[in-house]
């Protein structure tokens, strides 16, 4: 078995900052990441064979990105890319799949920096090709410099809406509409005092807004997407305003032709690993929903396991970079590389910066807070579980028949049992149960986490490459009934 002082899971902003800081103070650090290239989502890297010929508006983060990428080669750091952590066989040990290099690793301390993904927000037509998430669009831009459509609409809730709108405008797409569900213009006055704690981000937001306006696109606040239409791919998007009570006003709905709809209803922490480790969770809606409970020094309820960055509660890249760095200092102190005084001196300035980001976040949260009206958009035909093709109508029928828990609905419909392992449907399933039972969503019990934390192949478990498996010819054979 491999051994290391500090194991960091995730090579994004938080993970790489933690690794870099810890290695600087003399720890042997191993970083496991499931992507081919380092940087995570925010600092997603272009293919290594691509070269910049000159700086463009999309290269503003290049300096910080390059500094982060460089940490993978830093002295004291072992960086393992394309490695999927899937199990913890015993305390302090994680198992990972990495083709013929799969294995286990024992660490004195573990930092989980698992990042986040888009919160699912189902509406009729959201499964059509041409409907992509805000995170996915930004990844295609950063990692590939490709825009997946031409005539574009952006809809959602949160700061990514403006960012994606600006991306599409600057990339030369035909941006039609940018719609933000929260009435942010009306709320700006009440938030600005906190927002200016991070003046650079406020300036960026103004730039995004200007880029959208310059493109000729319409920017609406207090509006949402209610439907995507098309035969085999997206052709039309239906938008509608949200009235003062938080209800969608369908009488004022309008349809707009588009071949790209980017939806961004906020991010949620990727908690599958902390769940598998049986870390205690708490419900923090403004930080993305379920997050690991953290004590002083970022420690979860499982001793020796720390959680930082968006995976521990959505805080954005500025928070992730600083939490990561702080966790690196904490790790070095705990493993005896820094005295208490040395660590305290290093921590103080980072903590002061984190306090500023927290002030900013409070303003942002007030600005974008939105009533959870999205269940109103579900029709009986709307897909809730994309992997297993389960509709809202099927789930509600089961609920009416007395299946009232996530486990019962999972067992009878396969919802949450597909390849995404519930990441795109568990939240909606919990919301449907909360709605039917009248409980708050945080009282809805999640199904028991099961191995593997992420999909791995049998070949990975055998630590060798296996030839492709002969699949049965009948596509519905392993899945039971076929519905049309």
């Amino acid at each position: 078995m491999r051994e290391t002082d500090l194991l960091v899971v995730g090579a994004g902003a938080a993970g790489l900052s933690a690794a870099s800081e810890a290695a600087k103070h003399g720890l042997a650090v191993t970083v496991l990441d499931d992507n081919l290239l380092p940087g995570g989502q925010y600092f997603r890297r272009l293919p290594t064979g691509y070269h910049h010929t000159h700086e463009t508006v999309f290269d503003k983060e290049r300096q910080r990105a390059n500094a982060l990428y460089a940490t993978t080669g830093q002295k004291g750091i072992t960086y393992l890319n394309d490695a999927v952590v899937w199990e913890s066989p015993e305390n302090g040990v994680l198992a990972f799949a990495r083709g013929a290099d799969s294995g286990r690793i024992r660490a004195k301390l573990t930092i989980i920096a698992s990042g986040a993904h888009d919160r699912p927000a189902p509406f009729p037509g959201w499964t059509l090709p041409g409907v992509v998430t805000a995170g996915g669009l930004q990844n295609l831009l950063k990692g590939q410099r490709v825009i997946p459509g031409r005539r574009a609409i952006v809809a959602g809730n949160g700061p990514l809406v403006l960012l994606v709108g600006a991306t599409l405008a600057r990339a030369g797409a035909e941006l039609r509409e940018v719609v933000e569900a929260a009435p942010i213009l009306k709320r700006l006055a009440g938030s600005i005092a906190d927002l200016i704690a991070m003046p650079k981000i406020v300036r960026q937001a103004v730039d995004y807004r200007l880029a959208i306006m310059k493109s000729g696109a319409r920017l609406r606040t207090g509006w949402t997407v209610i439907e995507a239409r098309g035969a085999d791919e997206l052709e039309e998007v239906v938008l509608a305003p949200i009235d003062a009570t938080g209800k969608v006003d369908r009488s004022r709905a309008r349809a707009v032709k588009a071949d790209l709809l980017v939806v961004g209803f906020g991010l949620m922490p990727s908690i599958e690993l902390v769940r598998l480790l049986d870390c205690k969770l708490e419900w923090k809606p403004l930080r993305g929903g379920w997050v690991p409970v953290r004590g002083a020094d970022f420690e979860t309820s499982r001793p020796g396991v720390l959680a930082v960055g968006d995976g521990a509660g959505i805080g954005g890249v500025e928070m992730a970079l600083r939490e990561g760095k702080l966790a690196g200092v904490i790790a070095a102190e705990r493993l005896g590389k820094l005295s208490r005084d040395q660590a305290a001196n290093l921590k103080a300035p980072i903590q002061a910066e984190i306090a500023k980001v927290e002030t900013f976040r409070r303003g942002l949260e007030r600005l974008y807070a939105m009533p959870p009206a999205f269940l109103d958009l579900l029709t009986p035909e709307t897909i809730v579980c994309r992997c297993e093709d389960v509709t809202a109508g099927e789930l509600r029928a089961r609920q009416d028949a007395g299946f009232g828990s996530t486990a019962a609905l999972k067992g009878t419909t396969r919802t949450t049992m597909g390849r995404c392992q519930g990441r795109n449907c568990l939240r909606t399933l919990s919301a449907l149960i909360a709605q039917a039972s009248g409980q708050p969503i945080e009282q809805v019990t999640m199904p028991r986490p099961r191995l593997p934390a992420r999909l791995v192949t049998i070949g990975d478990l055998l630590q060798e490459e296996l030839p492709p498996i002969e699949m049965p010819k009948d596509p519905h054979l392993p899945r039971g009934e076929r519905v049309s």
Partner: protein
Amino acid sequence: MTGFRITDGIDRGTAFQFTCDGESVTAYPGESIAAALMAAGKRQTRVTARRQMPRGLYCGMGVCWECIMIVNGKPAVRACMTPAEPGMKVETQHGVGDPA
């Protein structure tokens, strides 16, 4: 209508070809299968098993498994996470893995 590559400021190196459902598709070294397909205007990557619904890239970060395709005979390969290679044979995935 199609997607497109942003060319300003980027030298992608030398293009190559792979096939998708028998048709030739252009890609660059390191480019993901999904990105190359979208730049070529092809956005449907699979048809679901139960309801035969069209799907394509959704999350763009390996989380949702909506963009899975059959790559060189291997089913359930995420197009967003897999770099294209010269001569690669990519197919739309129907259900759990039958080629078209």
